[in-house]
């Protein structure tokens, strides 16, 4: 009975979304306050209906109601409670429901907290948001109903793929969706602005927090996914340029560009048209990501036939929203006010450069992701586009972005002098060159790229700290003046510092991992010792046992740097009887500067186990830096929140309050 109520709630949500897409639009057109005032109620109603359906689906998973097809396919009574719950979004139907739930949460947030928005803009934003909800609710109800029944119900379910039974992966999809779907706000605001025919600083001030929020979540989501891959795969890979990863990375690149261009709209009233276009494209890339993951078109060309209706449906949604929005853009964009003038060398100029390069970078990833499909469709050949391609295209495009990340924030708005600006960052530049040279010498000139990587990382970290030091006049003014300046700097400024320095930490991590990682792959019997990068690994013993829903074989390794002391690492191999699947649980010890990583293989029948030991220098910095970037976004967001709804500051003061 409960699932039928859930199904009904989804249909109700669909109807509310239908009304939400039409009524406020008409209301805004006629300036009818009654019709417009309906919009928030419809959005909240839609949210409540979807939330109710979602709760019922969670309930079905927790109660192991195997008369539901998705539960029977993806759950099992033996599974720990956490994974019963995370199993809700560990499958297509459930994760789609999570998708629309998050969409509705964003819509509800605008409805509830958007009181300071002009009535017509708010109505139009909610209407566009309602259309997205309508399309995806229809997708769920017509092709992916999570409440489909199974008769007769099996005694037990198939269980969740063991590889997904992991804490990191329990929170990874919700995070990712908060990011993906969050860009729908940018889309709704952009389309609403096109309908309104007006984009101003206030518009950007309303959009930016949403974009920031989505960006923070997407950054954290991608980081989690990457870290999960690292510890689950058994050999320490953390990024593969695989289509599914690219699907989340493209919106991230576009979203990063959007974040910065919205800044120009807000501060300087320029770049409106481009920002609108980016808002549309970023969400379109999110939709493309959804399409990629759901249709299976790129995973394997054949799996498209799995359920062609789904792929075609999402493709239809994608074409409708992207095409419609771009058409509207083409018609209306020219009527938007052109921005204020500025010189080439200026903060605005730097931000435009950032946007242009990020757009090219996103385009490169897009091309690399879809080109194999194009070649396949042309017939006669099949190709793969892997890391070597991205190393030769994406990396060179991003290199100037990284270099500009320190210089850009140093530039003044409107106009600046390049020479003067460069002299302001002379010190960190010298330090970065010194680091690069040092790395080059220490590596005996083996790799120019590694040396450059460390140089860029040093430039980003030191340069960004230098930005902060310059701002608070550290060492120039008396210390208490510096302290006062540090305290009075807005959180968003610290957001900038954290995010840009975080990028430097990521670059250092990637470079260190690439340059100095070591491995030792071998067969070991109990009592045998292996050496790697100054550590000795002794296999002390192997034990077998039972976990909650798996059997394990666990190796116990004593890791030492000298004769005495040391610590024990215990990698496992697990066997999940329900799915007849084996997974490895790598043992990882980290001291921030390096990770030691052991994964434990199978017995060869002669008392020896296949063991893989890795030394991963600086690798924790990759995720640490990424989280620092997300933290920077959060800091910026706290600042924003204080400013939303506040009366617009006078322009003169806006200039003095330095930018982020």
């Amino acid at each position, binding site marked *: 009975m409960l699932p039928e109520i859930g199904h009904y709630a989804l249909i109700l949500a669909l109807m509310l979304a239908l009304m939400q897409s039409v009524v406020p639009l008409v209301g805004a057109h006629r300036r009818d306050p009654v019709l417009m005032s309906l919009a928030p109620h419809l959005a909240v109603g839609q949210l409540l209906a979807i939330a109710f359906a979602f709760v019922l689906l969670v309930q079905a998973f927790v109660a192991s109601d195997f008369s539901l097809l998705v539960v029977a396919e993806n759950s099992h009574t033996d599974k720990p409670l956490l994974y019963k719950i995370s199993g809700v979004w560990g499958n297509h139907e459930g994760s789609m429901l999570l998708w629309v739930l998050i969409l509705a949460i964003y819509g509800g947030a605008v409805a509830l907290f958007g009181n300071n928005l002009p009535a017509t803009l708010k109505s139009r934003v909610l209407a566009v948001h309602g259309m997205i909800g309508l399309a995806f609710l229809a997708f769920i109800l017509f092709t992916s109903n999570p409440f489909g029944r199974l008769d007769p119900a099996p005694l037990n379910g198939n269980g969740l793929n063991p590889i997904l039974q992991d804490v990191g992966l329990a929170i990874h999809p919700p995070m990712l969706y908060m990011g993906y779907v969050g860009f729908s706000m940018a889309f709704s605001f952009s389309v609403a602005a096109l309908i309104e025919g007006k984009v101003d600083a206030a518009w950007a001030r309303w959009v930016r927090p949403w974009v920031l929020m989505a960006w923070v979540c997407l950054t954290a989501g991608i980081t989690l996914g990457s870290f999960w891959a690292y510890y689950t*795969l058994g050999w320490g890979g953390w990024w593969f340029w695989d289509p599914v990863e690219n699907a989340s990375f493209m919106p991230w690149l576009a979203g990063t560009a959007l974040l910065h261009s919205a800044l120009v709209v807000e501060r300087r009233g320029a770049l409106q048209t481009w920002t609108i276009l980016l808002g549309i494209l970023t969400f379109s890339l999110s939709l493309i990501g959804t399409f990629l993951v759901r249709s299976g078109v790129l995973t394997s060309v054949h799996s498209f036939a799995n359920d062609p209706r789904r792929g075609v449906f999402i493709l239809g949604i994608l074409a409708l929203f992207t095409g419609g929005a771009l058409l509207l853009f083409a018609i209306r964009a020219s009527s938007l006010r052109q921005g204020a003038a500025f010189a080439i060398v200026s903060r605005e100029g730097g931000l435009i450069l950032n946007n242009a390069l990020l757009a090219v970078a996103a385009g490169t990833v897009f091309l690399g992701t879809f080109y194999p499909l194009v070649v396949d469709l042309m017939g006669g050949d099949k190709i793969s*586009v892997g890391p070597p391609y991205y190393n030769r295209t994406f990396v060179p495009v991003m290199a100037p972005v990284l270099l500009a990340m320190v210089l850009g924030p140093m530039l003044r708005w409107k106009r600046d002098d390049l020479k003067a600006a460069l002299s302001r960052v002379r010190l960190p530049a010298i330090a970065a060159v010194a680091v690069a040279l040092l790395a080059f010498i220490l590596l005996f000139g083996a790799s120019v790229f590694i040396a450059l990587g460390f140089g860029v990382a040093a430039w980003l970290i030191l340069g960004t700290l230098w930005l902060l030091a310059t701002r608070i006049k550290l060492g120039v003014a008396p210390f208490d003046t510096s302290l006062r300046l540090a305290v009075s700097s807005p959180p968003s400024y610290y957001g900038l510092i954290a995010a840009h320095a975080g990028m430097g930490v990521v670059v250092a991590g990637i470079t260190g991992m690439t340059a100095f990682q070591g491995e030792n792959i071998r067969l070991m019997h109990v009592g045998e010792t292996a050496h790697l990068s100054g550590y000795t690994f002794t296999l002390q013993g192997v034990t077998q046992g039972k976990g909650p829903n798996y059997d394990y074989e666990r190796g116990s390794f004593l890791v030492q740097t000298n004769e005495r002391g040391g610590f024990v690492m215990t990698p496992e191999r697990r066997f999940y009887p329900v799915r007849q699947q084996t997974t490895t649980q790598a043992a990882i010890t980290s001291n921030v500067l390096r990770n030691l990583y052991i994964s434990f293989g199978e017995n060869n029948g002669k008392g020896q186990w296949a063991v893989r030991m890795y030394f991963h220098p600086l690798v924790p910095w990759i995720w640490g830096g990424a989280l620092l970037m997300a933290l920077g976004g959060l800091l910026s967001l706290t600042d924003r929140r204080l400013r939303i709804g506040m009366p617009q500051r006078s322009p003169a003061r806006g200039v003095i309050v330095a930018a982020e």
Partner: protein
Amino acid sequence: MRIISDRRGGRRSPAKTRARRGRPPVAPTLAIIAIVMALFTAPAFAVQPDEILKDAGLETRARALSQGLRCLVCQNQSIDDSDASLARDLRILLRERLTAGDSDQQAMDFIVSRYGNFVLLKPPLHWNTAFLWLAPLLMLGLAGVGFWRFLTRQQGAPPPAPLTPADEARLTQLIKDGPTQ
């Protein structure tokens, strides 16, 4: 780590192999959705101890080449990283060729002749991949032109009106007061 999703007689789809071994689904994918009655095969890793060649020089070459070869049943994963049995076969084949005295180029050519360009993670420059390789440059050029046009249009815009005496006075006042947070 392996994700085995060799499906056998899924309830809604015909028997079909859709291997996604060793690849993390960054978001839930069809592989997980599928009703999996996974075939249990002996667990394996990427390069295994028994594959490693005695000759360290040959092994280094094999490892380097492996990183450019795609595991045919995986998503953009090199055979060096993959634990699929097909990847293992390919690793062994590559090592056989190298041991037999092939140069790097000969070994790669041999594998490409057998499996096609699909096996190369770095797509070779052909007529049908020319756009793939040139497009980033093209986009960069376009972005440059766009950047330039935008700025020159900016230059053509009339300069902002000079400050009125009232603005001037207000500005002086503000500067005197210093920044107020």
